[in-house]
């Protein structure tokens, strides 16, 4: 019984941490969707570029990977603006399908650009304050410093976004743009700038997430896809465009993927012969998408969605 409880506690903690990381990755995606109704398929590629920024800058400047995060944010914001002014602005004139394929094309373009310049070998950070460090809290309960930092950053980012949108004029203008473009324009809001701002925030937040993740996860040009799939599920689960939804959905997904160790402990605890040695690790993402599927059937707008 004790083993089972310990396993549950461990899963709860690492699920919470990883969930906040998932939420952080999904934040930019949900902001862009909320303001513009555009699904950005290139989201994961912006994460990848953030990761590469840290991998290249940190050894080159001889500084700790943590200090490259502001640069990552800057690179991400500039990239977001470039994408908006160079491509998305024109796509908005076309039908929905053009926007879908447009960002899909952007994804392929960025990925192959990375392949061209960085090569296909995975790269990783080996030195840094966070790399490989962890704290032992209680019996067998380990807090990984990278994930802890990412989780803290995630909460901070969500708070900043919430504050920006609910407490500032710019935020009101953003909300107005997402609620009613025409109306916002009549009120003198430059919706063009609001769109660009959404892309800048989206790009910056996901690139910072990338810069932090690379302390832990090796980067290669295809890494974006891993996180994009989860980010899409997070955003859809939480409700397209909902910032609060992304936070909750991220945590839910983080907890779901931590179920297998609990299952293992439960199987050992029950000691029922036919179940011994049966693990559910290979199905953990199936579980995520299954729950996502259920929510879609029952509540198509997502848990906290307000856009239909």
């Amino acid at each position, binding site marked *: 019984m004790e083993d089972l409880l310990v396993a549950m506690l461990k899963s709860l903690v690492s699920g919470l941490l990883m969930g906040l990381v998932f939420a952080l990755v999904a934040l930019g995606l949900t902001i862009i969707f909320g303001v513009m109704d555009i699904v950005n398929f290139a989201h994961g590629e912006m994460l990848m570029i953030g990761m590469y920024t840290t991998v290249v800058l940190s050894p080159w400047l001889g500084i700790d990977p943590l200090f490259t995060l502001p640069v990552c944010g800057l690179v991400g914001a500039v990239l977001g603006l470039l994408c908006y002014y160079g491509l998305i602005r024109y796509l908005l004139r076309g039908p929905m399908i053009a926007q879908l394929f447009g960002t899909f094309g952007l994804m392929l373009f960025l990925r192959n650009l990375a392949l061209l310049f960085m090569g296909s070998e995975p790269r990783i950070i080996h030195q840094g304050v966070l790399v490989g460090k962890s704290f032992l809290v209680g019996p067998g309960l380990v807090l990984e410093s990278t994930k802890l930092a990412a989780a803290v950053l995630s909460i901070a980012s969500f708070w900043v976004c919430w504050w920006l949108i609910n407490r500032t004029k710019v935020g009101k203008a953003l909300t107005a743009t997402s609620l009613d473009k025409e109306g916002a324009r009549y009120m003198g809001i430059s919706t063009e700038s609001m769109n660009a701002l959404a892309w800048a925030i989206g790009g910056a937040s996901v690139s910072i997430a990338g810069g932090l993740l690379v302390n832990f996860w*090796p980067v290669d040009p295809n890494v974006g896809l891993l996180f994009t799939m989860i980010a899409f599920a997070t955003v859809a689960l939480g409700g397209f465009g909902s910032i609060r939804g992304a936070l909750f959905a991220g945590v839910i997904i983080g907890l779901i*993927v931590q179920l297998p160790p609990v299952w293992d402990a439960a199987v050992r605890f029950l000691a029922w012969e036919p179940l011994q040695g049966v693990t559910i690790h290979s199905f953990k993402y199936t579980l995520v998408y299954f729950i996502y599927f259920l929510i879609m059937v029952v509540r198509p707008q997502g848990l906290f969605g307000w856009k239909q």
Partner: protein
Amino acid sequence: MRKSLVALVAALALALMVPAVGLAGGKEIKIGVIYPLTGGAAAAGRVLRNGAELAAEIANQVVPGVDMEMAKHAGIKSLGGAKIKLIFKDHQGNPQLGADLAKKLIKDDKVVGILGCYFSSVTKTVSAVCERYGVPMINGSSTSPALTTRGFKWFWRTTPHDKWFTKDLFELLMGLRKGKVRGVKAVPADQLSVLAAACEKTEWGSHVSALIKEFAGQYGFKLPVNLLYAAKSPDLSSEVQSLIAAKPDAMLFASYTSDAILMIKTLKSMKAKPKLIWGQDAGFDKPEFRALGADIEGILTRSVFLPSVAKVKKVAGQVNAIYKKKYGINLDGASARAFTGLQTWVYVLEKAGSTDPKAIQKACNSIKIPGDQLVVPWAGIKFANVGGETGQNVLGMGLIGQYQMKNGKLGLEIVYPFDLATADMIFPFKGY
């Protein structure tokens, strides 16, 4: 009547000889080589290509200072000094593309035979094409055991496969219990009895997982956790948590590159303390993995070639020196096996003395290349049909290497087979 019979026989003989003479007369023998030269495995593709190229180069000219039969004369002697010409194709990790490329090589380029394809999944489709057209294919580096259980008549594999490699691991574990390992006193059986395994869940990993289960049963080890995981996963902490919870003496992995790195980083941050960590090659034998440095000291990986083989095998050292001069890196498992694959082609052609597929088939089925000709530490190459396997080299052997720090530099030392050991084994693993 008799005259016409003689004429007929002569004509037949001539007809049979023409294609062989025709090709040999061109002084060029085309071999199609299909590897993943772009895409995710491009790095592996590059060294595979290097290995095959170097073997062709050594075969095509006299290379003094290399104690190999094929280095002593230029080209294939029995074919009038015909030169080997390699035609490289890129399958990008795609089995369907591989099959199409094989068709093109056979029909348009008129290759004599095929070498490849590294990915077991691609080797599977390409060998099926070769079987259909009756074109010989030699495979140097695909380790899915299923490839040689299909009863194919035109497919031969030089490398030992995962079943042998996994068995090697259990032999090492038994060796540890019996005190046969260099530098380690016999470990009491109860201190080395619980295993936990995590393998990635594609065809390769799930097969390794099944083999681990099979051998654990045979050798009497406990295996409370034997899980499969998605290699393309953003997080492995749930897997590691399950592994640690089983309190295993040894942790066993079959991982690709990125997930192997993530696995070690997660093990470290979650403070895993097994006595032994073993990886089934692949990700555990990549330069990116080696870059983890001190964190992987003491970790074992099975391999087919390690730079330290050069210490115990002269010809390996000679070839490695040329390879390093040419490409700037040491031979590794991929390049050494690609080299050996093409080398086998050269010896087979030498023995066949013809480019006729039937003659090559006959040569393959009867050839025996002695171990002293090879860069890999095998007893030799001999294809046999044993235990339901067709075209499998039965003289191959796996190695188990251990990452060890020497003068601040990380290297792989051989710890198995016991008689080839190049260093004392570090046991138990220090833990994180």
